[in-house]
């Protein structure tokens, strides 16, 4: 990205609040409040699902009932009451959508307002978009062009019907229903999400992107994403998300599973901007997601890039299981917290195959009274000979009421592998701000400049268009952090 752009963006965003806080007034069909076996059946029936999937959900639900909500983290927060949540909410509309003409214009407008055009504009930029509104996928663009190459990109609810063999084979293969509390919950009630399959030898001709929007009140969002890259294929996928400003907390518990076969690569990028709550810490999204990829094949690669600026609480550890020999896992993360936000994020790199490599670059920025933790596991199995990891973990503090914490866990079970960990903590000081001020750069711009500089390594990993978006977000989310 050019420096010109960097600066322009920061200008543009000065004095903006959370600008995605509006809500859309639209007729909705919702499940009764609360969670029970009935609700699980209701969701499955709504989606007209085959018997095996209903059974799969019910098994997950029954298992979930035996679990206790995790409390291992350091922070206290208002607990989620699962009987006060609506687990399924969908705009009332025709069941099948063959073209965008059939989509409720109110919905198209909503996405337009979010800067996600499902119609003309986006076509120019060459990004295929799947838009998920509350519990359902609204539209997927560019389907036909992708189909020519054999690429499948559709709502997961659609894939269940159109490509049952693929869904059945891979769903839950990376994140089992029994994996953890939120994964079990998601498996029981997931409503929609994206499905991607890239056939052998195909380089996906465009960026694929899913945009999640929580709109309805008292709902949770439980999407499920499944991406499979077959031998020698490549895909770059991006998800973005926003929610209206509401006083009560809303739960988002997604599951993402990635699978790469021999010599395949998936690049998965997230720009997470759920509503973070207000300045006093009221409201905001609980972002409890499970993201994991498996490098099944030799020489395959999975790369996670995330820019996390939103949510009241984030717990998220996108992970890589490096099973194929010579496979590579990467994790590039920027997590920004301001006001009362809490973020506990990091990754797990599990080295199983020989000569596997992983790289972790984490940049945490805390302002206000927020807390930002990096938590990461690097595990090298006995047979994972000659494997390597490099971890770099940098924290930046703005003001003196915020906290940054680092929890690296390292476990190496052979003596031919090499694991390196570097960490640093820095602070945006008064001296730096005054120096910028003295050159005519205002304090907010100065913070934007310094923070973007701090995160450059990670932002550079994002596709161009999203890097611009991400830079804006960083600046916006740190507004009012000093002074």
């Amino acid at each position: 990205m050019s420096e010109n752009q960097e600066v322009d963006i920061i200008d543009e965003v000065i004095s903006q609040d959370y600008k995605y806080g509006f809500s859309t007034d639209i007729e909705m069909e919702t499940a009764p409040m609360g969670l029970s076996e009935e609700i699980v059946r209701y969701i499955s029936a709504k989606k007209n699902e085959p018997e095996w999937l209903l059974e799969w959900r019910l098994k997950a639900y029954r298992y979930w009932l035996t679990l206790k909500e995790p409390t291992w983290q350091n922070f206290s927060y208002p607990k989620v009451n699962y009987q006060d949540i609506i687990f399924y909410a969908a705009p009332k509309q025709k069941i099948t959508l063959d073209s965008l003409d059939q989509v409720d214009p109110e919905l198209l407008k909503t996405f337009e307002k979010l800067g996600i055009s499902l119609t003309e504009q986006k076509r120019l930029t060459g990004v295929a978009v799947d838009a998920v509104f509350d519990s359902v996928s609204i539209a997927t663009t560019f389907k036909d062009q992708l189909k020519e190459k054999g690429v499948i990109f559709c709502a997961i609810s659609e894939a269940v019907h159109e490509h049952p063999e693929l869904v059945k084979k891979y769903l839950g293969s990376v994140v089992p229903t029994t994996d953890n509390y939120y994964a079990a919950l998601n498996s029981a009630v997931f409503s929609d999400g994206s499905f991607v399959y890239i056939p052998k030898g195909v380089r996906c001709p465009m960026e694929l992107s899913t945009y999640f929007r929580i709109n309805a009140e008292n709902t949770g969002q439980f999407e499920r994403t499944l991406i499979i890259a077959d031998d020698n294929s490549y895909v770059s996928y991006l998800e973005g998300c926003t929610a209206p400003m509401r006083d009560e907390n809303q739960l988002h518990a997604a599951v993402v599973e990635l699978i790469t076969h021999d010599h395949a690569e998936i690049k998965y990028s997230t720009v997470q901007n759920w509503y973070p709550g207000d300045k006093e810490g009221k409201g905001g999204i609980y972002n409890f997601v499970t993201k994991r990829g498996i490098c099944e094949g030799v020489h395959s690669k999975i790369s996670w890039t995330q820019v996390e600026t939103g949510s009241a609480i984030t717990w998220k550890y996108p992970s890589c299981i490096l099973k194929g020999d010579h496979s590579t896992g990467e994790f590039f993360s920027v997590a920004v917290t301001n006001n009362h936000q809490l973020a506990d994020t990091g990754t797990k790199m599990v080295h199983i195959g020989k000569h596997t490599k992983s790289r972790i670059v984490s940049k945490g920025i805390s302002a206000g009274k927020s807390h930002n933790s990096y938590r990461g596991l690097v595990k090298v199995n006995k047979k994972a000979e000659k494997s390597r990891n490099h971890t770099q973990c940098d924290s930046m503090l703005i003001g003196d009421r915020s906290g940054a914490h680092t929890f690296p866990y390292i476990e190496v079970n052979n003596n031919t592998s090499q694991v390196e960990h570097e960490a640093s903590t820095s602070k945006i000081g008064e001296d730096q701000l005054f120096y910028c001020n003295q050159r005519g750069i205002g304090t907010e711009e100065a913070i934007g400049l310094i923070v973007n500089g701090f995160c450059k390594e990670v932002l550079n990993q994002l596709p161009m268009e999203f890097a611009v978006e991400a830079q804006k977000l960083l600046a916006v989310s740190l507004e009012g952090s000093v002074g």
Partner: protein
Amino acid sequence: MIATNKMLSIKNLKAEIEGKKILNGINLEVKAGEVHAIMGPNGAGKSTLSAVLAGRADYDVTEGSVTLDGKDLLDMSAEDRAREGVFLAFQYPIEIPGVSTTNFLKTAVNEKRKYQGLEPMEATDFLKLMRQKMEFVEMDKSLTSRSLNEGFSGGEKKRNEIFQMAMLEPKLSILDETDSGLDIDALRLVSEGVNKLRSKDNAYIVITHYQRLLDYIVPDFVHVLYKGRIVKSGDASLAKELELKGYDWIKAEVEASM
């Protein structure tokens, strides 16, 4: 305003930090085209004066006024003072990791232009300007792509300050001990750079401990700051006198008059 071409006017300026009085009534007038040198023993308040002029918020101004071309400077934020044309070359330049000098300066230049109601500078014009100004101080090109001041040697940092000054074309430049840390050749280069930038429209306040700098940048006036006051003013020869005799005689004069 043809009658007076006074650019900076400081009247009875008093400032303190954390209750400690540091500036105790400074009076100083600087006209466009002039160079004023400020000398004085360590701890006299020279850097404090420059910080107060530049708008550092830590200091409380308790009395007095400062105007720049008739505008009340004390009423402006630090960034607005800079945009109005006040430049401070820091005694201890600050490091900003991750931000290149180029990017930093591009932001600074365009912020100033925005303030003046101008469009941001075209990238190619900006780079041309950079190249041109870099020659002034023979700044190494590789420095501008590195993080601002990070890992720069003492001399490189000082040179970078003057380079930034050249880029921003300020009305009033305050150089706080820019000569300290420069080797002999760099001192000459930086001074020549300043001399080339001197014009009838801008002015300089040069803070230094050493006569040597003033051999190159010949001042119109020399002031001695002591205990937060300007206790003696003269022409360039005063600096030579101080070099020979030190400050004791001035201190004695001040004590005697109190």
